[in-house]
Structures are given as structure tokens and as C-alpha cells.
């Protein structure tokens, strides 16, 4: 599906936000699902790149991506300007699902992993409290803290260099808050694998349901290449992250 680029906004560090308008509305966009984005019409780069949905319009007439420039594909995306066209397919995969009756949701994000939580909080239904733990190397990379606060989320930040919020890893304020006796109904996490692994361990130790969003290398995004596999815990067989995930219950998969 061709989309028109509406915005390409620098977010600090290597991050930028792409606001896209598909030529026709796209159904079933949900936080945690992702698009496969074509970065160039040439054979280099050849494969599409997976990108999580950030914010989106309920009617599917617009959505955003939060992208970090890490290589050739993402650096091509960073050069897009308004009115350029970009070709995406999707959305694919599972989404972050707020359990019925949940009243309190904590989200732990690193880097572009904040993306799904923008849409999640924008479209939150019912009476759920949101706390977002944002971690980054330095304050400049703590993207979207203000925007999440505006939407009513409680935002707790941590930076490795101490330039903003707590000094250290984002798991530290998480553990502190849990130790202080607070306990959410569910924890969602998205970001670097070591961070998600730590969050999952902590959630499990506290008996809290936790959803993780895996970021395996993907070629197709819809189950055809069987390239993006992971193992279900305790099982021998591989499953495809793109179609059975990317959002899994932390108990389900090995991370």
C-alpha cells in the first residue's frame, strides 16, 4: 500500500518520526502490530524492514512510525520528505492486548520501543492507569516523554548517564516501584532484548503477567520465509515471530 509522507520529524539522537497517510485506509492497526516497509525501489536494500505502528487514527487513515537510523534501510527512510511516497504492507502480527478488567498497566520501553505505547495510550479504553518507564543512554534519547505525560500517563525515566531521571538502567525504577509495594495488572515491554529479558524476569518473579515484543530479523513479515523464528518455552519446535508474535506472553517464549 502506497502512503504519502506527511511529516518527517527529528526526535533527537538517531530517532525520527514518520507520519504517513495511506492512499486507502488500512484496517486492523493496533499497538504492537507492525508494517513491512520498503526502503527503496532498488535491489539494495532488497528486503523490507519491519517497523512497529506508533500512533494511528482509529479509522486507519493515518499512522506514524518511530524509527532509529541503524543501517542502510533506516537511513534511506530518514531522507524522506513530505509528499514522498512510501510503500508498506501490513499490519502484521499480534498486538499488545490489555487484559479484561485490568486497571493498572505498566509499560517499559527503550529506544524506538516506545512506539507502540503511543498508540496504546492514545486509544486506551475504560479506566486504566498507565505508567511508562522510559530508558535511554542519555536524556536526548528519551523520546516522547512529554507527549505521554500530556496524555495522562505517569512517566518515569532513567538514563545511563544520569542526565535525566534515575541514573542507571530503566529496570531500576521498575524494581523500586515494585519493592515499594505497587503492583500493576500487566506489564508490557518493547525495546532492546536484554532490557525485555530483564523486565520479563522481574515480572515473573513478582507474579505479574508480562507481554514482550520480539524483534527477530524478518524477511517477509507474514509467515512465508520461516526466517524469524523463536522457540516456545519447553518445546522443540520453532515458531515464526512475525505471525505468532511479535507480541508474546513472556512465559510463552524463550528470550
Amino acid at each position, binding site marked *: 500500500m502506497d502512503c504519502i509522507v506527511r511529516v518527517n520529524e527529528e526526535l533527537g539522537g538517531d530517532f525520527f518520526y514518520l507520519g504517513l497517510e495511506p492512499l486507502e485506509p488500512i484496517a486492523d492497526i493496533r499497538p504492537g502490530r507492525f508494517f513491512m516497509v*520498503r526502503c527503496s525501489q532498488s*535491489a*539494495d*536494500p*532488497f*528486503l*523490507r524492514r519491519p517497523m512497529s505502528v506508533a500512533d494511528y487514527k482509529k479509522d486507519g487513515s493515518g499512522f506514524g512510525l518511530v524509527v532509529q537510523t541503524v543501517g542502510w*534501510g533506516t537511513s534511506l527512510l530518514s531522507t524522506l520528505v513530505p509528499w514522498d511516497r512510501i510503500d508498506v*504492507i501490513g499490519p502484521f502480527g499480534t498486538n499488545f492486548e490489555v487484559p479484561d478488567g485490568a486497571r493498572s498497566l505498566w509499560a517499559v520501553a527503550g529506544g524506538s520501543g516506545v512506539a507502540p505505547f503511543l498508540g496504546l495510550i492514545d486509544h486506551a479504553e475504560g479506566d486504566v492507569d498507565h505508567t511508562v518507564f522510559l530508558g535511554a543512554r542519555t536524556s536526548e534519547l528519551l523520546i516522547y516523554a512529554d507527549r505521554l505525560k500530556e496524555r495522562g500517563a505517569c512517566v518515569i525515566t532513567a538514563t545511563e548517564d544520569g542526565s535525566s531521571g534515575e541514573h542507571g538502567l530503566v529496570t531500576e525504577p521498575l524494581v523500586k516501584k515494585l519493592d515499594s509495594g505497587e503492583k500493576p495488572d500487566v506489564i508490557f515491554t518493547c525495546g532492546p532484548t536484554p532490557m525485555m529479558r530483564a523486565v520479563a524476569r522481574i515480572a515473573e518473579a513478582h507474579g505479574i503477567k508480562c507481554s514482550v515484543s520480539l524483534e*527477530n*530479523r*524478518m*524477511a*517477509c*513479515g*507474514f*509467515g*512465508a*520465509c*520461516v*526466517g*524469524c*523464528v*523463536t522457540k516456545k518455552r519447553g518445546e*522443540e*519446535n*520453532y515458531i515464526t515471530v512475525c505471525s505468532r508474535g511479535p507480541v508474546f506472553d513472556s512465559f510463552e517464549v524463550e528470550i
Partner: protein
Amino acid sequence: MPVNLANNIAGLNLKNPILGASGTFGYGTLYERFYDISVIGGFVTKALSLKPRAGNPAPRICEAPGGMLNAIGLQNIGIDRFVNQKLPKIKDKDLVIIANFFGETVDEYVEVASRLNEVDGVHGLEMNISCPNRNNEGLVFGASCQITEDVVKACRKVTNKPLFVKLSPNVADIAKFAKVCEDSGADGLSVINTLSGMAIDIRSRKPILANVMGGLSGPAIKPVAVRMVWQCYRAVKIPIFGIGGISCVEDVVEFILAGASAVQIGSMNFVEPEICKTLAEELPDLLESLGVSDYRELIGALDV
């Protein structure tokens, strides 16, 4: 001017010469979310073995210049689940279904082939001889003419369905293998499988693929594939499926001129899930612009 795209290839009635290649088209059902797959000539299943196989650990894929590397490790659901769970969903569709298969020994090949021979709804077989030979440390079946001959002859005996052999490009003289297959009773050839390649993450100093080596596919390999199709075409009389890096309708015609009776599309399905449909739709216009009313005129029509 109506343009003919239909052909009978080694007994398979194809309405057009566009097929999905093995390992990139699943068991057929996956692409239904994008289009009605009965518009294409057919497809080849992911490689099937006697027992289900778990395949290699991740990472299994990575980007390469002009293509990709994969080391899936022949993960598959096994022949039983294919026949019982997948085939029923697609067997009534109007397209040719070819089962790609392999074994780890010649006996296993024969067993799979004879099982598939009984299966209604499987129209043809494609032997994948680019897979590791359990009795021959590190080497694949398709790297030895003798083993190729043995395995093709043995499978030929147990099936009367059209039998294609999919050749490995990692050989010095592919025409020799083509001839061996023809002489051993193959009805057709599939040319080519992936080129063996490798990529390294310079920061971790580790191979990017968990399996260390993988198969290179995509536009990068197209010149090698075209060359090999042409070499095989000159060596044998049996029909050839041309495979390797096809990404647009001009590429389809390039392979047909080199000697392919039909083509299979692999990695490009990942990038453009509708590519096979698009190619089937665009081919008549291109042929018309080339002044051709029947695509069969172009098979091997390279002017050298």
C-alpha cells in the same frame, strides 16, 4: 492480439509460466490473504521430508547486497501433516501443485517420493538435491554426479508423476548434472537453487547466520542463474524451470529466452507478496510489445 501463456510442461498443464518457488511460498495458503492464487500457473511447496524437521536456530536470514541469505535448515511439517492439513485447503484450486522433497539418505528420498506419488492433488514432484547427505559429511547430494544419478534413478522408479530435479548452482559444470538427470529419467529440471554464501557481523565477530553459511538468493544471483539455465538448455531436451533473482516481467522473458519453459519466483515474494500475480498479469502486454503471440516461441530463442 490474444497472447498464449499456456503450456504443457512435462505433463503439467500450466495456464501461465509463473510459479511460486519452494521455500518462499509456504504450502500455498499463505498468499491467499494477498490474492487468489489460482491466477498463477502453480507453486512448489516448501521442501517436505518424511518426518517433520525443526530446522536451524535463528538468525536464519539476513540482507545481502541485491538479495538475501537464508539458512532455514529445511524446517517443515513433514509429509503427513502436509497431506492431511495443508493440501485439502488448496487441492481444488485451479493451479499446479508441485511437492518439493528431500531425504537424508537415498532410501529416504525414495520413501518420500513413493509416498507423494500416491497423493491426490500433488501434480508433480521436485527433488531438492541441494541438501546435506547424511552419509557424506558436509557434502550435499547435488555435488556428486554419481549420487545425483543414484537418487534420481531410484526416485524415478517409484513415481509416475512428473519428476523435476532442482539443481545446485554450487558446481563447476551444471550442464553435466543436467545431462545426468535427464539420462536418469527426470522429466524436467529446476535451475537454480541458492548459491552458498556467508556474512559476518564485524562487531561480534560472529557469522550473522546461526548456521554460519546460508543460501544467497534474489536479484544478485540472476546473471549466474540465467547462465546456468542456458547451459542446461543446450545440454538437455527436458523442460527447465528458470529460477533465480526474478523481480520483474523483463526478467521472466530473459529466463525464457535462455531456455526456461516456465519460471519460479522466490525471494521476491517476500518483498512484493503479489509479485507472481503481477507478473502473470504483465506478461501478455510485454509479449505483445515484443511482437510475440505465444510465449512458447521465446523458449530458448536466444540469438547467439
